[in-house]
């Protein structure tokens, strides 16, 4: 039961974008830190700015 609730909570966070930064860090570690001189990941604040600006380019809401 508790496990299910936790799973739902994860889904809810993912859906709302609450964990977007954590997801980004994971992606960064996986794909962009193969070399030593790779640039460090963005800060939470910088990432959130980019993420939000990206999100609102194009048709995102309907009638």
């Amino acid at each position: 039961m508790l496990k299910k609730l936790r799973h739902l909570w994860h889904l809810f966070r993912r859906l709302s974008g609450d964990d977007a930064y954590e997801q980004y860090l994971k992606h960064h570690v996986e794909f962009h830190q193969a070399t030593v001189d790779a640039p460090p990941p963005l800060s939470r604040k910088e990432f959130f700015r980019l993420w939000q600006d990206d999100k609102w380019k194009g048709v995102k809401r309907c009638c």
Partner: protein
Amino acid sequence: MNRTIKTIFWILVAVLAAFALAGIALNRGESINALWLITAAVCIYAIAYRFYSAWIAAKVLVIDETRATPAERLDNGRDFIPTNKWIVFGHHFAAIAGPGPLIGPTLAAQFGYLPGTLWILIGAVLGGAVQDMVTLFFSTRRNGRSLGQMARDEIGAVGGTAALVGTFMIMIILIAVLGLVVVNAMKHSPWATSTVAATIPIAMFVGLYMRNIRPGRVLEASAIGVGLLLFSVFAGGWIDHHETLRTWFDHDGLPLAYAIIIYGFAAAVLPVWLLLAPRDYLSTFMKLGTILLLAIAIVILRPDIHMPAVTQFVDGTGPIFGGKLFPFVFITIACGAISGFHALISSGTTPKLLSNERDIRMIGYGGMLLESFVAIMAMIAATVLEPGVFFAINSPAGVVGKEAVDAVAKVNSWGFSVTVEQMQQLASDMGESTLFARTGGAPSLAVGMASIFGSAFGKHLLALWYHFAIMFEAIFILTTLDAGTRVGRFMLQDMLGNFNKKLGETSYTPSVIFTSSIVVAGWGYFLYIGVIDPNGGVNILWPLFGIANQMLAAIALCVATGILVKSGKLRYAWVTGLPLAWLVTVTTTAAYEKIFSADVRVGFFAAANDMATKLAAGALPTDKAAVAPQLIFNQHLDAYLTMFFVVVLWVVLVDMLLLCARYLAGKPVLKLSEVPREPSRLVENWVRD
């Protein structure tokens, strides 16, 4: 054994669906329970999803679970991200479900509950859901290209341009009509106006919170925002009872319209994080929460529907909008049955998140079924009202008269009983000064929702529920308005960028101000005309929006049909061809009537001529004579706009048919732009999970 049980289960569902449908279609009694509608809807959706969508996925589209999706191939951690299907479903549904499916069914309820309900069910299952699903599929196979790009790649430059221009025009009309709905809900209602006004600083606070105070804590900020919104509904009641404060928020339609126009401009120019993004979070949570609450309340309460199955207004004399059942019910209910706008979400945004092609069926087809269900609930909320009350609220003063006594006498003359006292009592229960001639659908939906919520969760809170419902509608109408104006601005900048590089830069301030002004002026004009029109404006703008939206749906279905034929699947082309043929018929007939009908309540030119004659003869009262020249000009403009929509539709259609003919004759055509197959690497992991 298992198989037998399954077969029996589906046979039972089919029998139940047939039974419920027969029940609602053949009922001629006083009233019918809303549960019949819910049962019919759920069973039909279940059968359509289980069989029709599965068949389309397997046979028509031939979905390939082992093929890598764009999200997997182009994963960049930002817009292309392989995502869990429930998450994508949530994003997709939040994007497609706006105020449309709430307003359309409410207006169409003037024909009775039956025609609208049948069209919502049949239209969604055979049309809307199919459109969303195939568009999602084709866009996924083309790296998430937009509808406009696909039209250009697959049909030709004409189709591509038509889709682009069509989208822009729809946006303008849609925003105008939505703005009008909000204005009509706020007119002389200090409670509604103050609550809606409060959503702006609340959204800004949430935006600042997410940006600077606690960056990226979306849920935390949203929870605070939702709390503040609910508080603002309470506070509105307090303002309404305050002698001086209430005068600050007690306005005519026109000042409110100007306020919305200024707000729209500000929202398009301000950075997204300050207003648009936080407002969207709030409206999404409100939307999902309220729809869920409404579904629960309907199931708990099982309200009776009081509207007749079919009213006498199928003959075209309806007070809410003129025009016969065919074609106007199919124009009035676009969202909820089939909505071209969805094709813009299904192409472009959603495909970039899919981790596997097999999710297309649930997200594309299933998402539309859920939206259709929202439309059914709106239909229920509109038809649980006494028909007399429903018509008294929704009929414009230009049709039933300005005075309460006249309006009541007129509604009574149609055979629907309602009294002045009853309307006064209802208005005071809802905390409003009057509910007569509150056109646009939002107030009557709010009254319907308030009475459902009131009966299910406590009757003494009616006024609170009413204003909660108004706030709920207004907040996501304003989100659509913000987002739409911004999209319109981007599209315009994109187009102008072809002529002048500088104008095409999305962050170049003079260009931002210039293009935003044009877009706002576009919808602001229609909003202004709608407000000064004594017939309420909704009766003109909503059909125009419906025609435009169905035109876009027809373009999307044209693209899909063209691709099916070019892929050598001619024998399956009817899957998209059939709804396409229906939409072309409906849109063309409706447009023809809107242009050429001699009925002044239907034909634009007829109305313009009628008004011009009266004006020349001096037969109009002074207040009407003052605005008549503008209204006459607008009727002409609307007629030409309608003509434009139909011409665009036929150009794309003929273009597509010629393309198919060339292909079938073995002549060279534009090549399919599908991206070559790559095997998915995620599938193995999926299997192991």
